């Protein structure tokens, strides 16, 4: 883990938010950031961004393509010769 970028005591919201991508990437504990102790707005922003990143894991893949996709792939492969004119893959059922 890299060290968190050091922040000045009198950092304002614009300066803090410009540093925010680096702070997130540093995986530092942002609750200790001085600016967040006194700025409710930036504290809410950080909570929201952390929440969005955590909720993104809900979007892991859950759907499969329909069986016709594989059928179409098989059909296309059968029609596609390899570089030497023969199929790159032996057709299913031939091995």
């Amino acid at each position, binding site marked *: 883990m890299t060290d968190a970028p050091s922040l000045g005591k009198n950092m304002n919201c614009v300066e803090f938010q410009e540093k925010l*991508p680096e702070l997130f990437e540093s995986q530092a504990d942002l609750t200790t950031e001085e600016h967040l102790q006194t700025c409710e707005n930036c504290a809410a*922003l950080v909570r929201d961004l952390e*929440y969005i990143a955590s909720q993104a894991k809900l979007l892991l893949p859950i759907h499969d393509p329909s069986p016709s996709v594989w059928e179409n792939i098989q059909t296309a492969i059968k029609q596609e010769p390899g570089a030497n004119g023969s199929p790159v893959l032996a057709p299913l059922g031939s091995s």
Partner: protein
Amino acid sequence: MSAGQTQAKPANQHLRRNPPIAGEAEAIEKAQSGDAKSFEMLYALHKRRVYSLCLRMLGNVAEAEDLTQEAFLQLYRKIGTFRGDSAFSTWLHRLAVNVVLMHLRKKGLPQVSLEETLEPSQDDGPRKDIGARDLMLSGSIDRVTLERAVENLPPGYRLVFVLHDVEGYEHNEIADMLDCSIGNSKSQLHKARMKLRDLLRSGQRKESTV
């Protein structure tokens, strides 16, 4: 380290992100030698992630299935060139990402040039959030709401967000897939999250006024 610099890839990082799948290495080797059953096994192992990526980027089942098909046909043509320098799933994802980007460019959608997509204008970026403290997102977003908001991100933001926050790829892997700098990937991810926050908050405001 500056944002644009590359950084050393931690040893075996791809193993942490992509733990070995039983039988995959053997299937790759056999598919490279022309074994159809092994290629079918690779399809079965990876179809869900490739299809989900296509679906998220296109928002349309028919197009997503077409591009999934195209990605695996590309795999069929190129599997002989896979040398194991990265995890197979990362290599396949890169291939699928390229298929998606090519498709978006052909459709002439705005911001689908990778360079443009990853370097949107200032106007397109999220605003700094100075002063608005009316709504908090925590605890209020379900899967469907978030999915819809992601659909409304510009393609470049969406791609980096999906690859990093949903699929769990590291910035150096994303930079490799998208042929951009690590700093660029980090910057796009932050802008994507900021834009998502805007979208989610504006959705909440609409709901609260109904």
